[in-house]
């Protein structure tokens, strides 16, 4: 059985935009049947994060990629654009599928 990837949907505050982005990601993941499980949190929750990828707003990607606790980051620029979310998650899966 193919594995399911663990994603942390992250924003600076951990509350607010990360919850909204997670809600939209969940819709896309469900509709497309993508093997990703999400939870949301703030940047401070990266300590001890042992998942596979971090999903965040585009403007936070550079700061997150520079963080050694982040294995891989996907940046979304428009949280209401399901096509963007779908394309970027699919591209990540294509790149990382084992």
């Amino acid at each position, binding site marked *: 059985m193919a594995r399911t990837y663990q994603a942390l949907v992250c924003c600076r*505050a951990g509350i607010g*935009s990360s*919850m909204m982005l997670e809600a939209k990601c969940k819709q896309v993941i469900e509709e497309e049947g993508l093997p990703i499980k999400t939870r949301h949190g*703030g940047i401070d929750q990266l300590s001890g994060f042992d998942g596979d990828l971090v999903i965040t707003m585009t*403007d*936070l990607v550079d700061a997150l990629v520079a963080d050694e606790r982040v294995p891989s980051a996907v940046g979304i*620029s*428009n949280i*209401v654009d399901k096509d963007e979310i779908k394309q970027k998650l699919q591209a990540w899966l294509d790149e990382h599928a084992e």
Partner: protein
Amino acid sequence: MLSDFLAEELVQLGVEATDWEDAVIKATRPLVEEGKITEGYVEDIILGVKDLGPYIVVAPHVALPHARPESGAIEPAVGVVTLSEPVSFGSVSNDPVRYLFPLSATDNDGHLGALQSLVEILSDDDFFAQLDSAKTPAEVVELVRITEGRL
């Protein structure tokens, strides 16, 4: 429901702002006055953008000013603010910003349903068309309530 956290006092239409910082300060002013957030929360919003970039600009023309709960979120609330002239936040994909939805996000999941509703409303083009033609805060509160019920 999002409309549970919205009140006429938190709606401002046609606000004049000189730049993004001015827009954030003016948009959050009623939340401070109504005891939803502290001045420190507003300062943390501005600090966050200066430190990390315009990540509160989450969709084309839309900003959700919010900060870390511990910086001064008192009780959950959302405002709706339109600007008379849009301002730049420095967001490559989503500038200029015309609509601000300042959030008081407290440190629990009690307002999760409201945020899910907000993201659906932001996905709805009809909502913005009607927001543009709204004349009074009362109309905006009613518009949010109706849109939320329809989606």
